């Protein structure tokens, strides 16, 4: 059996002593340095490129351009993005830059300085094309950004459930809103970095931070037109990802550089390290989106119908947008049983930075709309936001909008109740305008950002609650599996156990949890377990660390592999080797017409209650307390779970209150952490109370569910509800910057 245990992170000593090597630390002899040349063109056709001055810079070894790329198109949803935009490649669409972050060349030199100097000397002549900087503009289809696709609607899903006319008829109240959700930058600690070389077996090898080594290998192999066995991906330590390292950044160009140099007889490793600015330009963001939605309910608070139109800006290339849209589409009605639903969701191509994976994967945007609608209904009907949720949440046997039930183990009601209880939120107390009068026993919450105590007369307290569910694992029919290899060494007794696995430890601590699970599965002490991780040369495909899936998937794979190894051990195999590929229950894509499908095989459930103070004069919001109840099924390592809850809350706090990526005409105007503000230690909620619940998932390993994205989802709507409670004003757009808050409050007066 597995015992919940907060064992220390196995990677901690190396990281705190500085011994651990991140990709940018790896400095072999003979190292060459590379620079990516960005197009800086949101939409332009290349007419000519002249690299001669750059090549003449002393120390420049090679400059690679489009014609050097064997298969000049790649992407997680299809090969739509040129590796290098430019002339002379096999991809007829590669002459157009569709995003300012498109790559046009790789400069390789003896020093970074020489590479940078050469980069600045590359001359490119562009023919400007109209820049489509907004979804409204894109939807006109006057300019088609992806001609191979034929429309700027990259993907559309719909849901048709029940009888809408009847649903609106039954409603005593109908509430309509439009929500705007902003971009969000991942802002991981470690910007992209990597090193490419040919290994001792002649394989094109890339050491880089990513989220799915075998997918990286597939993308590199495809672009270089190599068999996958000829490509090797190794993940050294990774300094954060949050979805932002799921797509390719340096993987392909480093592989390309290693391969082309080798062909020219140069067998030297090449390293590229992005600056923060390059990182913010160079990878995708959480999607900006607009949700037009209408909810009907009876006066008792039963939802009768929901309609919604979702517009999601997927930017210049698809990345994982079709999948994100799929989640968004499902989550936009929240964790509720909706009898009648009519939903149209669009992913829209623009010349903006691509949208892609980011903790929650479309869930946060959907949850914001659904939870705010729910909170508005509660207010309008004079029902407590807890009670209205309990009347509508999914329970065993409930049907989703896609007309199938979620798998058993649905804990939404228990999670909401527990959260409300821990937050001291019982329904009798609920007044609906908790804070709209000045605070009497006053303690200035704003000491860290202003010196004078402020005016107690202008401080308002409020509280808010929201809940969410989120899938665990790949959805909508995407192939889903995870492999593990367990070797048991010894003679009479087990002396050591080796786990070979590809899971990426991006900082969440998954290697520690996997080691705990391997020990439990084999039935040995953790000290006997050795790890061989994240190298495609030794481990099998694990799938990505995303979709809150790795504990769930790897846990099941490890259990299978351990069982096989123990069987082999019993029949005297030495070492006894077990390999297992876990395949969860199948899922299905949306039906094109009705959306009917079995979307997911597992979910996690979460609720959050927030207490905050608003200074209605300055617009500043100070979050005092967040209570997060999160059903994790089984807490393998409670300390790691708390880390994920606190991290998700802080990241969502930034999303709700601070983070403001300014994109205009396809250009990011604030690609710096000095201008794109993420919360610091003195800005985050004073108290984050993690309430870890364990309602087992029947098919989870030891009952475990995924949990790492879930606490992100309800925070922004809970904050908005609390701000409403404090001020009487609803905000349908975040982040709640002081400037925006004051403007809206003054509108009301």
């Amino acid at each position, binding site marked *: 059996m597995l015992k919940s245990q907060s064992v220390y992170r196995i990677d901690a000593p190396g990281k705190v002593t500085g011994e651990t090597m991140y990709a940018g630390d790896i400095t072999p002899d003979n190292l060459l340095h590379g620079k990516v040349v960005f197009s800086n063109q949101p939409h332009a056709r290349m007419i000519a490129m002249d690299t001669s001055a750059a090549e003449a810079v002393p120390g420049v070894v090679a400059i690679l351009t489009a014609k050097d790329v064997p298969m000049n198109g790649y992407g997680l949803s299809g090969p739509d993005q040129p590796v290098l935009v430019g002339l002379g490649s096999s991809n007829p669409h590669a002459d157009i830059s569709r995003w300012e972050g498109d790559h046009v060349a790789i400069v390789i030199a003896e020093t970074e300085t020489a590479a940078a100097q050469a980069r600045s000397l590359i001359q490119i002549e562009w023919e400007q094309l109209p820049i489509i900087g907004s979804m409204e503009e894109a939807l006109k289809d006057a300019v088609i950004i992806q001609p191979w696709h034929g429309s700027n609607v990259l993907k559309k899903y719909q849901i048709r459930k029940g009888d809408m006319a009847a649903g609106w008829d039954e409603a005593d109240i109908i509430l309509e809103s439009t929500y705007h959700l902003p971009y969000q930058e991942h802002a991981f600690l470690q910007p992209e970095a990597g090193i490419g070389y040919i290994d001792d077996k002649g394989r094109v090898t890339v050491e880089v931070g990513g989220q799915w080594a075998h997918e990286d290998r597939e993308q590199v192999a495809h672009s270089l037109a190599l068999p996958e066995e000829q490509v090797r991906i190794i993940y050294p330590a990774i300094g954060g990802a949050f979805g932002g390292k799921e797509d390719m950044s340096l993987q392909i160009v480093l592989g390309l550089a290693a391969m082309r140099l080798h062909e020219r007889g140069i067998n030297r490793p090449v390293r590229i390290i992005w600056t923060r600015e390059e990182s913010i330009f160079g990878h995708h963001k959480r999607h900006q989106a607009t949700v037009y939605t209408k909810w009907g309910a009876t006066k008792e608070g039963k939802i009768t119908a929901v309609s919604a139109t979702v517009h999601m800006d997927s930017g210049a290339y698809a990345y994982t947008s079709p999948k994100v849209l799929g989640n968004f589409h499902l989550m936009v009605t929240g964790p509720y049983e909706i009898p009648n639903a009519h939903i149209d969701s669009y992913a829209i191509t623009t010349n903006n930075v691509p949208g892609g994976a980011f903790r929650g994967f479309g869930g946060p945007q959907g949850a914001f709309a659904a939870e705010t609608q729910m909170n508005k209904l509660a207010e309008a009907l004079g029902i407590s936001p807890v009670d209205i949720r309990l009347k509508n949440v999914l329970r065993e046997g409930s049907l989703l909008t896609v007309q199938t039930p979620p798998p058993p183990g649905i804990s939404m009601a228990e999670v909401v109740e527990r959260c409300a209880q821990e937050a001291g939120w019982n329904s009798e107390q609920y007044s609906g305008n908790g804070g709209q009068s000045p605070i009497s026993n006053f303690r200035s919450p704003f000491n860290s950002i202003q*010196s004078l105590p402020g005016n107690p007369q202008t401080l308002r307290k409020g509280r808010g609650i929201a809940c969410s569910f989120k899938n665990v694992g790949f959805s909508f029919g995407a192939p889903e599996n995870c492999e593990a290899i367990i070797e048991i060494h010894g003679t009479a007794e087990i002396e050591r156990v080796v786990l070979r696995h590809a899971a990426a430890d991006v900082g969440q601590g998954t290697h520690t949890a996997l080691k705990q699970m391997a020990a439990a599965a084999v039935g040995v002490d953790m000290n006997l377990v050795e790890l061989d991780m994240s190298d495609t040369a030794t481990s099998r495909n694990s799938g990505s660390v995303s979709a809150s899936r790795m504990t769930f998937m790897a846990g099941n794979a490890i259990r299978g592999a351990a069982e096989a190894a123990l069987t082999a051990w019993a029949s005297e195999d030495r070492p006894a080797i077990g390999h297992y590929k876990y395949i969860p229950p199948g899922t299905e894509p949306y039906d094109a017409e009705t959306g009917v499908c079995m979307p997911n095989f597992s979910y996690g459930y979460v609720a959050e209650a927030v207490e905050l103070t608003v200074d209605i004069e300055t617009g500043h919001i100070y979050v005092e307390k967040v209570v997060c109840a999160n059903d994790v099924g089984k807490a393998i390592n409670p300390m790691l779970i708390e880390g994920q809850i606190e991290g998700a809350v802080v990241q969502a706090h930034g999303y709700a209150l601070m983070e403001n990526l300014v994109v205009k005409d396809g250009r990011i105007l604030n690609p710096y952490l000095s201008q794109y503000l993420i919360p610091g230690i*003195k800005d985050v909620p004073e108290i984050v109370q993690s309430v870890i619940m364990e309602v087992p998932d029947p098919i989870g390993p030891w009952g475990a569910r995924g949990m790492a994205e879930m606490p992100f989802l309800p925070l922004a709507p809970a904050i908005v509800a609390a701000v409403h409670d404090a001020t009487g004003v609803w905000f349908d757009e975040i982040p709640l910057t002081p400037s925006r808050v*004051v403007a809206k409050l003054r509108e009301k007066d």
Partner: protein
Amino acid sequence: MKPAPFEYVAPDSLDGALAAMQQHGFDAKPLAGGQSLVPVMNFRLAQPGVLIDLNGVPGLDGIWQTSDGTLHFGSMVRQSRLERDPLVAQHQPLLAEALPHIAHPQIRNRGTFGGSLAHADPAAELPLICVALNGRIKLQSTTGERWIAARDFYTSLFTTDIGDEELLVEIALPPLPAGTGTAFTEMARRHGDYALSGVAAVVTVDGSGVCTAARLVYLNAGEVPMVAEQAAQMLVGERPSEEIWLETAVAASQNEIDPRGDIHATADYKRHLAKVLTIRALKQAFARAGN
């Protein structure tokens, strides 16, 4: 990024530093705490040919009081020391109150009084405080020295009256007249960042509680620390009241500051914030003046 190449000299006396300034003139930059200079060099917004490091120059790090009550500061006094110095807390509480708003402790440990004044960022706290307190600044070169009022020192954005060969060596803050109360407040979007708006209020009241003098100075409200002369004048001859504070705050924020909108806040919001902070600062300053 890394800075462009530069030469580095580390004089061990003030004379040596002044001589180096004379020798290199326009091409030289004195290096104090480096907390502004090094970042702008790394961004290549500044590319001085020679850095003249003042950190080894003795005699620039004193704080002393003269018989007339004036507090004097060597230009190299670290900001963290200003924050904790008992003389400062006692005689110039406005300075002590503003200090914790400058960046983070690590930066204040290196950053200096003189460096911040010379850098002349209109969003910075120390220039504003010096203007509000009628501070004077001593400039010195190999050919002589001169004193200039802080208010006249600031000429435009990041620009002061200092000559190419001059060093800022000393700051003097005259004592507060009896019956004077001060207050500083600001608001940033994030702890430790430059403020969206901020104001220093210095008010003097007579024995009967009537205001006899007032000063309001704003940061991040124009190219230099912005003095709201006319608005402050509205307070003189009046007894403190919510009404007069509001009138004053409205007048100052509407007529005497010129904040710019940026990605963090609209200009309209900054004006509004200046108004709100003015009322808070005046209320506090008058309360302190009364005691």
